[in-house]
């Protein structure tokens, strides 16, 4: 058995994590070669949650595809739907009204809160800290009740329609949101305290999975994982979409690079989200909720980039004049972050591996795509230069 450098690994021990493992919430297969307790090699095999969603988009209308795209992931379903709606609206050259965009931002921030609280609990559970797990999930119920009152469902909110949103914010819901946010903010201050000062928890997170800024940029990580290593990248600030040009976001960046920094980034992002939600509710523009959307979208292709709770989400939609999309391509944030796990795990103890895996906030159901290389030839590992050269040559031919 060879590792990447071509050296033989003599009778070392391979620990499989997944596809069924208590550490993983969704199935994927990782193999960690350990020597005693230290990891010396890591490989991954993805694809266990592949459902062929991109393929189903080719035989369904745009309206039906919206709901398919929403179900790519359970925790980030709203940003998928938002990205798809924005893409199709770009193709049809329709602008959703300002009130709809603001409500999209509202639900997106509520979803971010939900996702980060969920992740906080899961990260604590991987460290064996069940008290934090139970309490943060108990508080997550508050935001799920808010989302249920606003949109009608606790996950897969279906708040988006092509051209706007479905659900409006009434005064009663507004009050419920504000009360809930006040309670959550108080609890988040407490969790920030726990995450930064609890001695037993810090022993598991401080200095674990350190990634320098250069490494983060070379590996191409996105989202809070990158922001924890000092990379200043947040799509809501760099390339505002929906109503983010009106409701400005502050980037939350930490320099530590280890797991503790990633915990801190996500908890601080919770505070940002509370602030944005209050701002949106105070300044909700008046108007209608949807714009008139044609059934047949004219030919063209469009891309959107959106900041999901886990990082940059990229959508490409191509239409051919009918009411069914020609091709939808999704690139979720967990794919680049996954490569960094394999790189970071080497040299750490086996006990740190679930923590590192939880640290990137993996969403395995998002990241399963299949790529078929038709004639590139060879099955060796391609370097970045080779891939770029291939792409440039392809377009020059």
């Amino acid at each position: 058995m060879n590792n990447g450098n071509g050296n033989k690994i003599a009778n070392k021990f391979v620990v499989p994590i997944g596809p069924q493992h208590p550490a993983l919430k969704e199935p994927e297969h990782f193999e960690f070669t350990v020597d005693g307790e230290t990891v010396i090699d890591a490989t991954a095999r993805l694809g266990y949650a592949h459902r062929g969603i991109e393929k189903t988009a080719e035989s369904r209308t745009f309206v039906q595809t919206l709901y398919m795209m929403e179900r790519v992931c359970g925790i980030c379903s709203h940003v998928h739907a938002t990205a798809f709606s924005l893409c199709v609206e770009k193709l049809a050259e329709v602008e959703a009204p300002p009130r709809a965009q603001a409500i999209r931002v509202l639900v997106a921030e509520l979803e971010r809160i939900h996702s980060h609280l969920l992740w906080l609990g899961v990260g604590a559970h991987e460290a064996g800290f069940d008290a934090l797990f139970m309490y943060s999930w108990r508080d997550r119920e508050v935001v799920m009740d808010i989302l249920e009152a606003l949109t009608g469902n606790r996950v897969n909110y279906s708040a988006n329609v092509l051209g706007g949103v479905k659900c409006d914010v009434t005064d009663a819901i507004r009050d419920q949101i504000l009360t809930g946010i006040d309670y959550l903010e108080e609890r988040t201050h407490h969790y920030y305290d726990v995450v930064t000062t609890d001695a037993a928890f810090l022993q598991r997170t401080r200095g674990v999975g350190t990634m320098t800024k250069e490494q983060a940029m070379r590996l191409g990580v996105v989202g809070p994982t990158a922001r924890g290593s000092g990379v200043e990248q947040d799509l809501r600030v760099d390339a505002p979409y929906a109503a983010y040009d009106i409701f400005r976001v502050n980037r939350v960046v930490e320099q530590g690079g280890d797991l503790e920094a990633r915990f801190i980034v996500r908890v601080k992002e919770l505070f940002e989200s509370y602030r944005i939600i209050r701002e949106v509710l105070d300044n909700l523009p008046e108007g209608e909720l949807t714009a008139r959307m044609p059934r047949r979208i004219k030919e063209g292709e469009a891309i959107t980039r959106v900041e999901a709770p886990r990082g940059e989400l990229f959508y490409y939609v191509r239409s051919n004049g009918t009411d069914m999309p020609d091709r939808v391509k999704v690139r979720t944030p967990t794919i680049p972050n996954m490569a960094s796990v394999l790189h970071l795990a080497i040299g750490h103890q086996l006990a740190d591996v679930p923590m590192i895996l939880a640290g990137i906030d993996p969403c395995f159901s998002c990241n399963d795509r299949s790529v078929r290389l038709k004639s590139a030839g060879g099955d060796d590992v391609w370097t970045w230069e080779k891939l770029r050269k291939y792409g440039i040559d392809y377009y020059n031919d």
Partner: protein
Amino acid sequence: MSVTKIGTMFGDVVNGLFKKPATNLYPFERREAPERLRGHVVWDASLCTGCGLCAKDCPSNALDMIVLDRKAKRFVMRYRLDQCTYCAQCATSCRAGAISLAYDQWELAAPTRESFLHIYGAPDDIAEALAAEANGETGEA
């Protein structure tokens, strides 16, 4: 960040001992469903115009509209509970407001599959529609 404490969750944990558990003891305690909860699809035949957009737009093909006579407003609607994803696209597509999702019907589990097929419409309309389909002539929108 140089101060480290032991047992930071102490206050929570001790408080949790004396508070009521956060668990909702379903089915003995049922919480109120919010008004916008997307439950069972409900069709109001009097408002329906028979355009069939609801059936066309449904992402999971759970709704089926059979038009017997558009002018006389004789429609039959077939609704498959088990295929429905409760997304409310049908309610949004309907321009007449004939479809809504009931917020109090969300406990829809059943032991057999047959109970998941609902056919709405006047009884003789239903019989006529099913007979027409059985004979191979469909009048679906």
